[in-house]
């Protein structure tokens, strides 16, 4: 929006200055809980509440040491489980969704329109609608307390939103490329592998990043399916701290909470632009 203060020049512009001041203050308020968490994680448990200052008097890593082993199992195990599940989810979603998206975007087959419409409907379907019968199914297969109920659906393109995202993207790839390859004798499989997949990489990255984030953060699915502590993911590990309510557990609990956010911060810094573009252009929920 052009206002008078938008005029070029280096003169001091009070309105613009006020705007920056307000935005910086707002940013501070938004970040304050995270700063508090970071500061609390290096304070002794007894000082977390009595000392409200954000800058800790001394940096103690004791909470991290205690927290790492503090939840009846090492957080090394929880992180390993979480990363394994999230990595498999990334592979499953990128692979399965791109195959399916290619079919919907480029191939011709019977009932294509009906199936596409059905797929769109499943995007709107709440997860809870299928939770109970899926549990009964996986229980019958003997998959409870394994990662299969969490990971296998990703290889079956159940996250239909990503299929839709990729269909839209493939429609933007010029058909001449496929046709040229077809003239060279390439079949659909080769066109998918050597033309579509490389050009699809921006959408594949978006899918991979969001698959990782959502799977890593997910609490409900592991809570339902992973029952023994050796299979717990990081969110379940954090949950264990809450069972012990003493003041002494707060420091380690907050330290591990912050540590569990580190992979998310790393992804945020590496893929910031992709994340924001992904949300802005497709409306993916962040």
């Amino acid at each position: 929006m052009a206002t008078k203060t938008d005029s070029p020049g280096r003169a001091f512009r009070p309105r613009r200055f006020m705007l920056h001041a307000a935005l910086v203050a707002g940013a501070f308020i938004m970040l304050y809980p995270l700063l508090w968490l970071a500061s609390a994680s290096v304070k002794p448990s007894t000082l977390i509440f009595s000392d409200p200052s954000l800058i800790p008097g001394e940096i103690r890593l004791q909470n991290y040491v205690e927290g790492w082993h503090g939840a009846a199992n090492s957080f090394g195990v929880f992180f390993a489980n979480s990363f394994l599940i999230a990595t498999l989810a990334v592979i499953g979603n990128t692979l399965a969704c791109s195959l399916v998206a290619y079919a919907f975007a480029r191939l011709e087959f019977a009932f294509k329109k009906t199936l596409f419409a059905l797929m769109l409907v499943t995007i709107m379907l709440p997860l809870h609608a299928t939770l109970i019968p899926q549990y009964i199914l996986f229980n019958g297969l003997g998959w409870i307390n394994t990662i299969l109920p969490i990971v296998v659906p990703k290889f079956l393109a159940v996250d239909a939103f990503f299929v839709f995202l990729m269909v839209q993207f493939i429609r933007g790839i010029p058909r001449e490329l496929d046709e040229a390859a077809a003239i060279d004798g390439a079949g659909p499989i080769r066109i998918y592998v050597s033309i579509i997949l490389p050009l699809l990489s921006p959408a594949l990255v978006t899918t991979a990043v969001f698959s990782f984030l959502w799977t890593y953060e997910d609490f409900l699915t592991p809570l339902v399916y992973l029952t023994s502590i050796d299979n717990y993911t990081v969110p379940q590990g954090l949950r264990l701290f809450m069972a012990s309510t003493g003041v002494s557990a707060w420091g380690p609990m907050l330290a591990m909470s912050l540590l569990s956010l580190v992979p998310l911060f790393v992804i945020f810094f590496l893929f910031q632009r992709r994340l924001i573009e992904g949300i802005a252009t497709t409306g993916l929920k962040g």
Partner: protein
Amino acid sequence: MTAQDLDTLAAPGAAVRTPRRRGLLRNRHVVGYLFLSPWIVGFLCLTLGPILASLYLSMTSYDLFNAPQWLGLENYRKLFFDDERYLQSLSVTFRYVAMSVPLKLAFALGVAMLLNRGLAGLGFYRSIYYLPSLLGGSVAIAIMWRQIFSYDGVINRILEQFGIFGPSWISNPDYSLYTLVTLAVWQFGSPMVIFLAGLKQIPQDLYDAAAIDGAGPLHKFFFVTLPMLTPIIFFNFVMQLIGAFQAFTPSYIISNGTGGPADSTLFYTLYLYEQGFTNFRMGYASAIAWILVGIIASATAISFLSAKYWVHYGDED
């Protein structure tokens, strides 16, 4: 290009279709369904089948170990007439949706408008404001929230500076739901990013034309920005609405799995989880799930029906 490609090129007259390609793969239907197969299996086994099973189960009593007992509509009757905790979970969830969705959208739009003034450092601000919505769904954030709003938490420490002595926000049933609403509103980043993208699409000539007609900033907002943004507002509204009805993690963590104090944070999905996976009343929980599908479908349908009265698409004019 691989050796096989060169082969094909070398063979005269074999350009478009390779005669040597195996028979089945020449059928376009077979090829299409081959690529589609992961989704077909997933759709049949993990979506369609379970939905139908859930509809049947919702009319039975089933505990996973004994065969389901047919009850007809008894589960549904019981939910609405004999289950106070269920009605409480409905009420909590509706209040949560009614407060968190409009507030979140208002913050998202407000901050997006501030950021859309060609400021230096836009990318920086946008990232900071977006960050909470990236982290917000995690258990760690819910744990942090619980500590911040506890009796001796940092919120009360700050209020003390102003001579206000706050209650324990988390363990007081009058306030506990508001802590969950604030947590949701704190995550206004992703609708904000979508609003920002929408604001950039509004043609500058509309504002120029409005300025010539003597419109002030308020007029520009109500007669240019807001109408032009209605498709985006609509999209954000529907997405946030669907998401808010399904919220689970914050309620579970902040109430330590109970929905307390006094069921004041008993979200719909938490009650569903409790019935299904703590009490193993799978039939009853399926009925709860079906009503949720109904609620979300009706809320979405009502939004779409209302859209023709307030959503303006640019190509209509």
